[in-house]
């Protein structure tokens, strides 16, 4: 893939700077913009290969969903008492992954963290696609998916409205809001870059395409002023939103009565978990992308270092949650809670609980050392572990709690079927198809923000030595 890249600088790893040496307005613009404006027929084979592979998984996904609609959700392993299985596990898992994007683009914007600039665009894209993958599960997990529109409050001939006390109904609003706001925020961020592409594009179709999308942005000072205000407001909205979404999803469990679900610590603990695996996913995506597209100058080791720190921090919060559960199951003196922990840690599926501890608690401790934080293979491995671990966390919460609740005679088992796996693995197909399209059609790094970063760096330089120099070419 690299070979087919026009601009390929010598790989110089930068550890303490957010920009590679000698980056200028033009160089960054070209680096990012040309990946997109590259002629269609000269699309790199690597991209085509990846896209086709992802497409195949998407086919598997569609096949299993088609079977689901025609035969019934009995094709999954769910039963009574374990009425939720892979469907909801994957739903929570994907939504969690999504959160990192919003966090990077919104919260870090509020905190004026410059390091977000070169990763926020891709992270936001990841958010949107992850939310898309997540959103499908609650829609298809119903027994009669063709009636899902009953979740919406519309004046129906039945005279019925949704039942607003149900956490699932809260989800409907939370997820749709989250998806909408993420898309809006994302698009607003894209406008100036789309204008850049419009002006750099050679091919008329590309010009028209980006021209229309950019709404005719011309970078007027007045517009910039309002634009920055709007982004600030959106960031201000997204921040509580991203916290609320996973809190509300945690309500699905926390509001219920089930031992192992009925837990007050869930909201913060779910949010932290979401950030945790979200950042892991960002790292997973960034490591290959930067080397394929030669973005070493834009996504530097500093970025990975900082992201690792965030992962470590959120990981510790999650770990606290695990120990919290164990503690109050004993301290509360509630026999059901206590038994739950006993069966989790020693019961038939105890291995999955210990796998979760290994992947989520033990392995990430490596991140304490900067050596590992900046060693991409190790980082890649840790990120994979965290994503697996977080999947197991949802497995433990959902399945292991449902298997054994109050009345021992109704305890059950859960064995995933082929279709459970197919609907899970297949959803990666959807995710990567969308992601490949994104890297081909839209700038995967926020160009104008990076130019702004160049600008700021220049100024820092000037302030040091009282000289006047020019940015740009």
């Amino acid at each position, binding site marked *: 893939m690299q070979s087919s890249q026009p601009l390929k600088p010598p790989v110089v790893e930068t550890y303490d700077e957010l920009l590679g040496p000698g980056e200028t307005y033009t160089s960054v613009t070209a680096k990012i913009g040309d990946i997109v404006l590259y002629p269609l027929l000269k699309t790199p084979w690597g991209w085509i290969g990846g896209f086709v592979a992802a497409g195949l998984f998407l086919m598997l996904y569609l096949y299993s969903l088609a079977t689901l609609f025609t035969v019934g*959700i009995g094709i999954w392993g769910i039963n009574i008492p374990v*009425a939720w299985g892979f469907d909801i596990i994957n739903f929570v898992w994907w939504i969690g992954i999504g959160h990192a994007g919003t966090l990077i683009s919104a919260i870090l914007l509020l905190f004026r963290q410059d390091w977000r600039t070169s990763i926020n665009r891709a992270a936001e894209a990841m958010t949107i696609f992850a939310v898309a993958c997540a959103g499908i599960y609650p829609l298809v997990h119903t027994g*009669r998916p063709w009636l899902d529109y009953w*979740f919406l409050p519309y004046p129906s001939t039945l005279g019925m409205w*949704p039942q607003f006390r149900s956490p699932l109904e809260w989800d409907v609003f939370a997820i749709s809001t989250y998806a909408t706001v993420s898309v809006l925020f994302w698009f607003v961020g894209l406008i100036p870059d789309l204008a850049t592409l419009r002006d750099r594009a050679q091919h008329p179709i590309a010009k028209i395409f980006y021209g229309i999308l950019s709404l005719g942005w011309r970078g007027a000072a007045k517009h910039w002023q309002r634009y920055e205000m709007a982004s600030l407001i959106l960031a201000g909205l997204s921040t509580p939103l991203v916290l609320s979404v996973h809190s509300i999803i945690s309500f699905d469990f926390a*509001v*219920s009565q089930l031992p192992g679900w009925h837990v007050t610590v869930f909201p913060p603990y779910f949010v932290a978990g979401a950030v945790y695996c979200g950042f892991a996913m960002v790292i997973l995506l960034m490591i290959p992308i930067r080397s394929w597209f030669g973005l070493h100058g834009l996504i530097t080791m500093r970025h990975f270092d900082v992201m690792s720190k965030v992962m470590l921090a959120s990981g510790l919060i999650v770990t606290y949650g695990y120990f919290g559960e164990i503690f109050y199951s004993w301290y509360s003196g509630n026999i059901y809670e206590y038994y739950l922990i006993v069966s989790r840690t020693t019961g038939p599926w105890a291995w999955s609980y210990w796998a979760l501890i290994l992947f989520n608690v033990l392995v990430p401790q490596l991140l304490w050392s900067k050596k590992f934080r900046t060693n991409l293979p190790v980082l890649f491995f840790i990120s994979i572990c965290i994503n697996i671990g977080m999947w197991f966390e949802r497995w433990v919460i959902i399945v292991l709690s449902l298997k054994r609740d109050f*009345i021992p005679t109704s305890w059950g088992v859960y064995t995933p079927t082929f279709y459970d796996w197919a609907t899970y693995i297949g959803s990666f197909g959807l995710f990567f198809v969308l992601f490949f399209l994104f890297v081909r059609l839209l700038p995967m790094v926020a160009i104008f923000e990076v130019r702004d970063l160049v600008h700021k760096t220049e100024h820092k330089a000037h302030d040091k030595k009282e000289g006047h120099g020019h940015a740009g070419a």
Partner: protein
Amino acid sequence: MSKESLDIQGSSGQSYWRSLEELSQSAEFRARLEREFPREAAELRDPVSRRSFLKLMGASMALSSLVGCQFALKQPQEKIVPYVRQPEQVIPGRSLYFATSMTVQGYGIGLLAESHEGRPTKVEGNAFHPASRGSSDAWIQASVLTMYDPDRSQQILKAGQPASWEDAFTALGSAYAQAGSGLRILTEPTASPSLVAAIQEVVGAGAKWYQYDALSGDNTRAGAQAAFGSAVNTIYAFDKADVVVALDSDFTHGSATSIRYAQDVASKRRITSDEPVMSRIYVAEPTPSNTGALADHRLAVKSGDIAAVTQAIAAAVGVSVAAPTLPEATQKWVATAVADLQAATGKSVVIAGETQPAAVHALVHAINAALANVGSTVNYTAPIIDADTGAASLKALVDEINAGAVSMLVIADVNVVYSAPADLNMAEALKKVATVVHLGLYNDETAAASTWHIHATHYLESWGDTRAYNGVVSLQQPLIAPLYDGKHLSEVLNALTGKRVSAHDAVKGHWQAQLGLDGFTFDKAWQTALHDGIVAGASAIGSTPVTLGTVGAAAGASSDGLELIFRADPSLRDGSAANNGWLQEVPKPFSKLVWDNSAQVSPETASKLGVKTEDVVTLTINGRSVEAPINVVPGQANDTVVVHLGFGRTQAGKVGNGVGFNSYALRSSDAMWVANGVTVSKTDKTYKLATTQSHYNLEGRDFDILHAKTLAEYLEEKKAGVKHKKHEIYSLFPAYDYSKGYQWGMTIDLNACNGCNACVVACQAENNIPVVGKEEIWRGREMQWIRIDTYFSGDSSNPTIYQQPIACMQCEHAPCEIVCPVAATVHDSEGINNMVYNRCVGTKYCSNNCPYKVRRFNFFQYADEETPSLKLQRNPDVTVRVRGVMEKCNYCLQRINEARIDATREDRVIQDGEVVTACQQACPSQAIVFGNINDTSSQVAKLKALETKFTVLDSLNTKPRTSYMIKFTNSNPELSGKTE
């Protein structure tokens, strides 16, 4: 009648095939072929194999004819008399009840059949009838499904080829003429006066009549013979017994008398006040039985050692037999039991089971005499069925056949090729008979071995009469004209002598002759008899005086080594109803096993044999062997292997074929119930068993789920003024006002329930609950709305057994309702948690949040919406649920509304006892009470006011409307260890 159906009904080969061409064009036919899987069959997701394809084709042809006309509303030709209203006024939507009766092992049980626009949809007990007194059991409840079974035999077959009744009629006549004294008739045991008369008439000089029942009570009969010199019939009055000692006798379940006896026992166990008085029950048995679950002191002993126990009791109460030496624990049990028995002379019952040898029964008669129970709690009457009906009788027949003395054999309603003990080799024997005529509901194993197969009528389709265990005679009146134009035994018998007499004329004629009344008065008597379901002229027979002869010792040397015990399957009994999905899927007591039988062993024996549940072993005895999966059951006597009869059918139908293994293959005519010297060899195979319950330990949650105490304990606490511990209920928000109008509630008395499953099947019949099959149950998707939870406590060799029926509790703070995003489950003003099927989207969140896990989900399209005959069985008052919706118990809302409509029309309030839920109605022990808790005078309100009431998981503040009575063990302080 449409052309097709005519062709099928009375068809010679050619027209039959011609009609096949025609049929293959019909929509029904194609629909049948396009069906992905037969829903009433076990394997939900199996592709249709070639074999079942042919079956479907066969079915489709008959069904297409049925669609033509047969399933239309059709009253029988003759005048039948409704129980409450005149049938002329069939009001659409209103059900009519007709008194009728069915036979169990030859004895009559009076029933009321509910009819919707001419379709019998459900049967209940007839309150006037001594054997049912308004209750029923799982077997009776499931009999409706059998009538509508699409696999029922639908045409007469001659050597497997369709033939007409005309052909059969002439053929039978000539064969009978030739046979003369070579005629033998083999029927299931029958006490039906008209049938007995008809058979006697046909069986002229030389010819003989045999009766066979695989579960026959020959031992009991022989026991009476030994004790009194005449095979008197014993009737027990458990409602007068303060102490009951049951020796391997499951008298509350699975027989013609069990419903009545269960009621009587329960009447001495039910809690009605805060100072409960209970009878005390001792049970010694090799394997847990429903009666054993009731016991206050249960002793697990090998079947062969029961004799010794009996003899010890006998010796202790003064019967002149030597006291055998018993193990210490057993000795203690006997001593205590005897003490209680002697303290309650004249108010106790000692009873032995039909699986015990005659000598034991003789001893028991002596014991009851010694305890002065005869005349009070134990009564003797003249025998109702005065003949051998077991192995002896069948053996005599086979000997005759082998001696070449039989040229014609008429087999009626008994699948003898399947259910005969293996050593008699029935199939071979039948080959030696020139003409074998088989009359039966199914084209089964015996039909295949017969020259002629005539499809019989179901009891709901035919006229007839029955005689109960105490001599009471009831009439059978058809609720619907025979679906497939089947024949009744009396018609076949008349055909032999060339007479064409309908079953109706036969039975009516018989009784006109019997009662000797003139036309008019007889008609009136006939009307009354049909109306009440009881023939006034022939009610209960008085007891006959008996003189006790000398009874010998029963205890042989107790055999070491493994004991192989044959038992009737708790659900399928002898296997004649193997094609009944409801019975296949109802979880067996204790093991909760469905769709299979197993080799049951105790945990200790299992470890001794080095096997565990689901291991496949080979059971070998007398050179015959079968492969069976092991199932470890606590509370079974060590060194015993219990196999249930009724499985391994090869020609039962789509549902019953190939389910389980055939344990008749191990049975021999000299060891019908217990056989010694069985060898168990472990194979390396394993077999998947499907159960509806996998965990039997309360995990120390009894304080919240099942409150159990010894009666003594409770009474002491009461005296000391200690209140029974209940959780304080707080609420953060104002309670909903339930103080006005009807507020429905239920109590279940755990002291009366013996876990007989009557409620489970009754609920299934009432609420159109689908059958899902083994694979789905294995996945944990059973659909029954009410389940009976079983807990074992104490040591696994002889645990205390608790059973607790659980259905939707109708919580006032229903956790399921809050989490439903579309308000598909909501509360109504009368406190019922309604499930709105139409609104349900199927998120299953409600089930996750239900602490009782009583909700059931349609993971697939379980309800069979294609098979016409099954459609007819459905209760029109209850929605048939589609794929993807949740369902659950709703206190039989349809029955409440029916009562409400009546009350409104008559401008009154619903009276207490007017609304009876299906489970309550069926329950033989009347453990379930339902009613309006706002009406303080109602029975349910009174019971709920008792101190002994508790609700399940009340610590969750769900405020259930269903409450329970503390499970008391009325244990004898002398006998420690079994007390909680």
